[in-house]
């Protein structure tokens, strides 16, 4: 005889199996209908993996300077050549992937998430609170995001964590706007009234009823913003206001001293730029495909 407990476990396993199958089916459909998005997904996975296992696949210490080997073109010992200090470019590109992925995911994770939560709060509470919050967002949006990040990073000083905070902050305003718009329509649903009637607290309604129903736009927003965050990090580091040297940030590779050696070894300028471009392209394509799949208004186009 099967006890209630065992039955429960069996149904849980079955439910999980269903979920896995549904995920697999969704993935297969995604691959079939979104060839460019799939390419983007592959690039994303690739760069994340490179970022994670970087220290195992680089060929030299990324910061190791061997002046005797400086300014080489691509060859068998240095696949991508070397820079003006004789550092192996391939190893630095690999190390840069880690920085880019790290900055992108953390800044989106903090900025977009915080902005989204503020937007939910603002839209659900409404009234004067909403008005005040929206005026602050107006003020933040009165300034280009990249310049906001620039000013903040200059106030905080250079550093990996500071770049993350700066980019996160610059992303908040648009996240607040978008989530507010979504929640204004979600909160009109009957189930929101129903849970209010049975005495659920506003916090519970926001987190358990509104948040899950506003999840798709959040994921779309976050995935679309990832490429932008990588670009912003690269731009800040390029200006010398981002991740400080000798860290192998892709933007930093192109800046300052390095740029004066580019005529003698153009590869120094080509590889980091191509790395930025391919990764941003991958994240953008994946984000766009995700939006096509999830945003019902765009479906079937």
């Amino acid at each position, binding site marked *: 005889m099967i006890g209630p407990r065992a039955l429960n476990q069996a149904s849980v396993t079955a439910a999980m199996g269903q979920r896995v199958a549904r995920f697999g089916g969704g993935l297969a459909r995604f691959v079939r209908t979104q060839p460019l998005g799939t390419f983007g997904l592959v690039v994303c996975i690739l760069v994340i993996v490179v970022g994670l296992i970087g220290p195992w696949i680089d060929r030299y210490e990324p910061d190791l300077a061997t002046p005797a080997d400086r300014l080489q073109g691509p060859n068998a010992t240095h696949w991508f050549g070397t820079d003006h200090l004789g550092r192996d470019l391939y190893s630095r590109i690999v190390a840069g992937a880690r920085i880019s992925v790290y900055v992108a995911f953390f800044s989106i994770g903090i900025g977009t998430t915080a902005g989204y939560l503020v937007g939910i709060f603002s839209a659900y509470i409404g009234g004067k609170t909403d008005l005040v919050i929206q005026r602050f967002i107006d*003020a*933040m949006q009165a300034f280009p995001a990249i310049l906001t990040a620039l000013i903040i990073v200059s106030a905080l000083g250079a550093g990996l964590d500071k770049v993350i905070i700066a980019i996160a902050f610059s992303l908040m305003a648009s996240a607040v706007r978008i989530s507010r718009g979504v929640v204004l329509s979600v909160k009109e649903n009957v189930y929101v009234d129903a849970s209010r009637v049975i005495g659920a607290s506003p916090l519970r309604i926001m987190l358990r009823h509104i948040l899950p129903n506003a999840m798709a736009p959040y994921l779309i927003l976050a995935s679309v913003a990832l490429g932008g965050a990588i670009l912003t990090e690269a731009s800040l580091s390029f200006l010398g206001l981002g991740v400080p040297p000798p860290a192998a940030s892709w933007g930093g590779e192109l800046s300052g001293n390095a740029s004066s050696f580019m005529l003698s070894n153009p590869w120094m300028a080509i590889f980091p730029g191509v790395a930025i471009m391919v990764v941003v392209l991958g994240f953008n394509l994946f984000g766009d495909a995700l939006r096509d799949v999830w945003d019902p208004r765009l479906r079937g186009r």
Partner: protein
Amino acid sequence: MRKYIARRLVLMVPTLFIFSLLVFGLLRVLPGDVAEKMLIDDSGAQTASKASLERLREKLGLNRPLYVQYLSWVGDTVRGDFGVSLLTGRSVIQDLKQRLPLTVQLALMSLIFSTCVGVPIGIISAVKQNSLLDYGLRFFSIFFLAAPGFWVALMVILAGAFWFGWVPTLGYNLLWQQPMANLSQLGVPALILGLSAMASKARYTRSSMLEVLREDYIRTARSKGLREQVVIVRHAMKNAMIPVLTVIGLQFGAIMGGSVILESIFGIPGMGTYLITAIRRSDYTVVQSVVVVFALMFMSTNLVIDLLYGWLDPRISYA
């Protein structure tokens, strides 16, 4: 209409007030004030005594309470007095007069370029949906959306130096002083600056056009025998442009941000290089003024865009 503009202008006041508070608060978090940086000697060591630091702070007004500093800044700015650079002692308004025209011109040139190229690309792409041309143009725009502007600029400079012996000039002329020299100097940076804006306009125009082309009135226009050209230009394009306008407004912010970076690559003495130098040296007065000017530019552009809506879409009225 006039009433609407007036209301919008009044609404800008609280926004600017909050904005100025944010900027001021943020800048005063800066570690190491300008007084310290001014007294650093050539070797980078801090040799000045505490007393001389204090004297300098007093001279610059940095030892006053923060709210006094804030109020005097706002008061001066409203009266059009942007103060003097803490570092060079030059009047900020004089500097702005020289630098603003270059940046505005750069931004406008790339705005015009990106709109005049991006929008037609999007329309062609939509009209010839799923053709080889469409795929080609879409790839083109995806490419430039992902390529960082500063890198494209570096590549252009590298390629120019390699194959054509071309180097970007140092020293820029103003448009009304030497028009030809000015245009040839700013042309390349403006093109590069406009590339990603062009790409995103092409993409928005394409999707907006596709949406409009599915509307009933387009079918009606076609079935009453209008030429395809007329259908596209007179019926579809005008309606498809409305969402694209918003993007053009938002793009202006991205163009301003991009110009800060491109100016420093091409050594253009505009607002961008001014801002970056001031940031590096914690020159508050300059940073504050540049930031306020940027915000004003951005806000007024978006006001103009909103007014253009009414012109494009008669259903929107600002009575």
